[in-house]
């Protein structure tokens, strides 16, 4: 079971008065405090995208800095090359990836304490597919079990490197993903119970794969044929006496058996495109997402808007990206070489999963078997507050989200009651990085390289706005009172000590 301090247990220095919340969650505080000694003397791990179970929440009680910048409270920094993948931290090492010179993938390890370069590996990227900026060819965040670092690059597959030396351990090629709209790969692996679990939801052959962490051999593979391209990271949910791998995808939140990859349950409440990752707290899965268009806008709309390049309302083989031409015939039911009205309805997607766009924030109780849509959906908010890119943060009793323009909202996780809605945090622009939390603070990274620090709690309070000097797409890592901030070109370690 995963624990993190509630906002009430680790007060921020500038936290507002909040008597009602404090008293309400006093029991939670007691539980957390009781568990704190377990963490003492052991370096905090942030071993994958957004840390433990992709939660974005630090379990450390070491104070985190509020005010900092690219030249203030920087314990070390390193030039690592262009990248958007998140740093990870394990056993005193920080791992980052980069894509340099238009043809080389880089994986490097730095000492978490002093930034010393421990090792650096380069890999020829090979022939690269089309992608859409700001996505990068090295956008997948690695994962580690402490001994090995698992890195995914779309043209190479999954690589395992020795965490201490960077030496090759194994390499498992995976089918190169294909995206109808050329978004490009950006899925990240996780490590669970000796397995490297990787969900590759693309538009061609979406699948969930488990590899043996020691050998790279495939444990199991489960096709996800009713999915479209998406980037949700798998999360582990323990509920109702079972452990599930939970993945949000097109229209459906699904739970899989980690031992064999079989699908256990599905909750059919999501939207067409899922780029955000869910978070789990106390057996409940929280999701926030936005998919362009309204509920009726299925893939057909995008096909006609962007792929139908002569705008005649039909899709020809020539207009179809090369990777998808082998599947053209399946959709072209009358065989006339054109996908027309009725055929476009279901082209390149599963006919029994025709979800459209919109926005939603949901809480779904984990566990169960079969279709749990009617039984496990706890609450569902349909409003315009979620981002299509930024995952939600659940910390303490609040769910926090932020979207383009620095517009933030927060909800009580119990029933979805609004704490604040669509309020500005004072930093404009795009947001790709997901918020993280620790020490009673929420760190919100804007693409413009400013990190806004908020007080964790029921009211929006901006504590600081910190300039990291250059754009930032990656989500920061937190370990032992330090923030590891990966800007486009550098990694900064920021902390009070």
């Amino acid at each position: 079971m995963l624990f993190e301090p509630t906002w009430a247990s680790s007060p921020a220095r500038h936290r507002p008065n909040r008597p009602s919340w404090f008293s309400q969650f006093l029991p939670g505080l007691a539980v957390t405090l009781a568990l704190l000694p377990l963490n003492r003397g052991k370096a905090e791990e942030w071993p994958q995208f957004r840390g433990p179970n992709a939660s974005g929440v630090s379990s450390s009680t070491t104070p985190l800095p509020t005010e900092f910048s690219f030249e203030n409270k920087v314990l070390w920094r390193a030039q690592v090359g262009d990248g958007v993948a998140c740093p990870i931290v394990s056993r005193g090492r920080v791992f980052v990836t980069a894509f340099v010179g238009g043809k080389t993938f880089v994986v490097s390890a730095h000492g978490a304490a002093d930034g010393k370069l421990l090792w650096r590996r380069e890999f020829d990227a090979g022939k690269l597919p089309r992608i859409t900026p700001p996505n990068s060819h090295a956008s997948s965040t690695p994962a580690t079990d402490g001994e090995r670092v698992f890195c995914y690059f779309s043209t190479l597959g999954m690589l395992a490197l020795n965490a201490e030396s960077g030496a090759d351990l194994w390499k498992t090629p995976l089918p190169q993903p294909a995206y109808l709209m050329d978004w490009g790969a950006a899925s990240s692996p996780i490590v669970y119970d000796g397995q490297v679990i990787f969900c590759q939801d693309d538009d061609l052959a979406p699948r969930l794969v488990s590899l043996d962490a020691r050998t790279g051999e495939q444990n199991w593979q489960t096709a996800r044929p009713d999915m479209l391209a998406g980037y949700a990271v798998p999360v582990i949910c323990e509920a109702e006496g079972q452990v599930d791998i939970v993945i949000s995808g097109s229209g459906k939140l699904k739970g899989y058996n980690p031992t064999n990859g079989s699908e256990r349950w599905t909750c059919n409440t999501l939207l067409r495109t899922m780029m955000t990752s869910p978070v789990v707290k106390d057996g409940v899965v929280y999701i926030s997402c936005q998919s362009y268009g309204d509920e009726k806008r299925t893939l057909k709309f995008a096909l006609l808007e962007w792929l139908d390049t002569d705008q005649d309302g039909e899709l020809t083989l020539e207009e179809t990206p090369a990777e998808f031409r082998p599947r053209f015939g399946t959709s072209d039911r009358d065989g006339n070489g054109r996908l027309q009205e009725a055929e476009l309805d279901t082209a390149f997607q599963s006919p029994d999963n025709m979800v459209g766009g919109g926005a939603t924030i949901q809480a779904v109780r984990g566990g169960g078997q079969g279709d749990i849509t009617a039984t496990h959906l706890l609450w569902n908010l349909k409003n315009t507050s979620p981002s299509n890119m930024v995952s939600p943060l659940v910390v303490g009793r609040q769910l926090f989200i932020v979207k383009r323009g620095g517009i933030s909202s927060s909800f009580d996780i119990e029933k979805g009651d609004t704490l604040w809605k669509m309020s500005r945090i004072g930093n404009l622009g795009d947001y790709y990085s997901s918020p993280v939390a620790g020490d009673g603070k929420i760190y919100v990274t804007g693409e413009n390289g400013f990190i806004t620090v908020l007080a964790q709690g029921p009211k929006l309070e901006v504590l600081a706005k910190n300039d990291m000097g250059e754009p930032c797409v990656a989500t920061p890592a937190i370990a032992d009172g330090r923030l590891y901030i990966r800007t486009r070109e550098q990694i900064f370690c920021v902390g009070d000590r």
Partner: protein
Amino acid sequence: MTRRWLPLFAFGAGLCLATPVLPAAEGPAVSIVIDPQAPPLEQFAARELAGLLESLYKAQATLGPQLPTQPEPTFVIGSPATNRALAAVATTWPKLSDQGHLLRSVRLGDREVLAVGGGSPVATLWAAYEVGHQLGARYLLHGDVFPAEPSPLTTANFDLIFEPTLRLRTWRTVNDFPIGPESWGLAEQKQMLRQLAKLKYNRILVSIYPWQPFLHFEFKGVAKQTSLLWFGKTYRVDGDIAGRGVFKGAKVFENPDFAGLTDYQARREAGERLVGGILDTAHELGMTTGLLLSPLEFPREFAPNLPGAEAVHQLASLTIGPGAQQRPGDETLQQLAKAQLRGALDAYPQLDALYLTLPEFPGWSTHAPEAWDRLATRSKLSPKPRLEELVQAARQRTVTVSGDRGEAALRGNVAALDFLQTLLADPALLRSSRGHTVQPVLVSVDPALFPLLPQLVPGGAGTLAFLDYTARKSAAQRELLRTLPASQLDSSLILTLADDNVGVLPQSSVPALHEQLGELRAGGFAGFSTRYWMPGDLDYSAYYLSRAAFDAEVTPATALSGLVTPLCGAGAVDRLKLVFASIEEATALIEQHDLGFAFPVASILRKHYEGGDSVPEWWGQVGQLYLRGMNEAYRANQRSTLEGRTLTLYLARRLDFAFNYMNCVEALRKAGIAKRAGDAETHAAQLQTAVEALHDALNAQAAVARSNSDRGVIAVLNQYAYRPLKQELEALDQE
């Protein structure tokens, strides 16, 4: 390792070092035959061709004087006059002009090879670049793009001869404003020059202003001290600005060659290195060079030398010009002007031509009647037109400069021409220290004087005519152009590819350029000189001019297809046709309603906020045109090959910028109206919308920024709009 193994190891290491490291032989072997005695430019052409073939086919080229012994694609560089390998085809070699070049499949002995040659070394270089073009390479202004699937590598069935229909193809650079090449360092200038050579432009014109740090002179004990770029403005790019990633952490936007330089001497040296480097590089690429300056404007520190001189008020009062006290024959004025021109020629003795621009805003018109009498007499005008007739013509024409402004321009031009005739009568003035005489070219002579130019222009001088600020407006004045007897003197026309008044917004006007090229050919003009600030939008224009200058049959449509199809694949060209149609329509609307709509100065957006009581309907039309163009560009991008996306994605993001810019302008106008009406809520809401739209606009621009002009737009709009508007918004929030 033990000691006894060391010698063996050393031997092995030696073997490794002695073995040539060959590149992986992925592509075909090709031969490029070049005569060892060939001129340097032809040797360069051979190396350039080798590079192109490697980029296109991963071909491993062998350069040498002999035909290969193996049967492999063979390119023979030069002509029978410069390459002995072509002696066998000397009798069938066509007569080429010094700019004519050919690609011809010929039989040499028992094999067919491709002759790649020209009537001069630079023409041979163009022939080498033409090989790349024929095989699918496209030379965009920022770099080459090679198709994923080039045409099959063959040397057979070529018989192409290229002769220019316009012999002088001039590309202007430096100029003014952060959004223009004034912000480019030498490295960026050189990159552009290499591309221009591939596009067969053959003259580089460096346009400079008196306040800039590009030439030094002294006069009567006063030394030039002004060395400003961008009219002396500074553009901060630190802190919370939009699109900041393009500045890589810099605090101030700078031309990289002047970074951190504040001292006059250091800036002067940097400036001379920059311009000298441009001129030298142009020469190395076979181009001729020109320097454009205003001979009647001087930095203001020279005011004490010229009593009665008047400050020239443009964007900043940085210069002086002659006032009523100075007659055109004024000896001090003549000497001061000579000092400035000699300063230019001393700094740049490699110059081929000196372009002398007549002031854009002349105030020196009181002497026009007496100047006209002198001019007419000296030029032997018969019959002598009356000055009043010329004035009437200048007043009544339909170009932008007409009415009172037209009359002032005409009168000022008459005085200036009188002055220049006297100035250029000194045969030593334009003698370079390298022994040659630099050709003078008079720029922007008033159109009312066009019919008289063969008489008014000093012997040996050329002219560079200017009709109006935009290509469309100029094309509408074709009747004026026909009054210039271009065949009687060396004349070119300024072709505006993008105007600084329309400013930071995307612009395109290839159909108007096409009309003007037809007029130039018909009128016997030598050629053209480009006018632009931001190069990113201009690949289509530059390509059209490049191809049409050698082939009168080229149209805007065939040029677009020729540019796009090899890069992006079939299907994209139709979408891009719509993209450019949208840009052209939007540009036309802006020209029609508000020529200075996005002029890159401090008031660029403020004027829309502080003035006006309604949102003009045409703003919405322009915004929709940009939106339509953006969508089409994204469709083209979707359809395009990876290689072609350098073109399509740039356009998509530029139009994204433009669409958001229009959203910003509209919201700003509404915010301003609300503010003046005391409607605080609407004011704040619209201001918020404007700031966000501008942020999005600048981020879109930043996403594809690849030149310092692109970065200059971001710097300018942050300085003059984003930062102050955001501050105002934050202040409102505080309230």
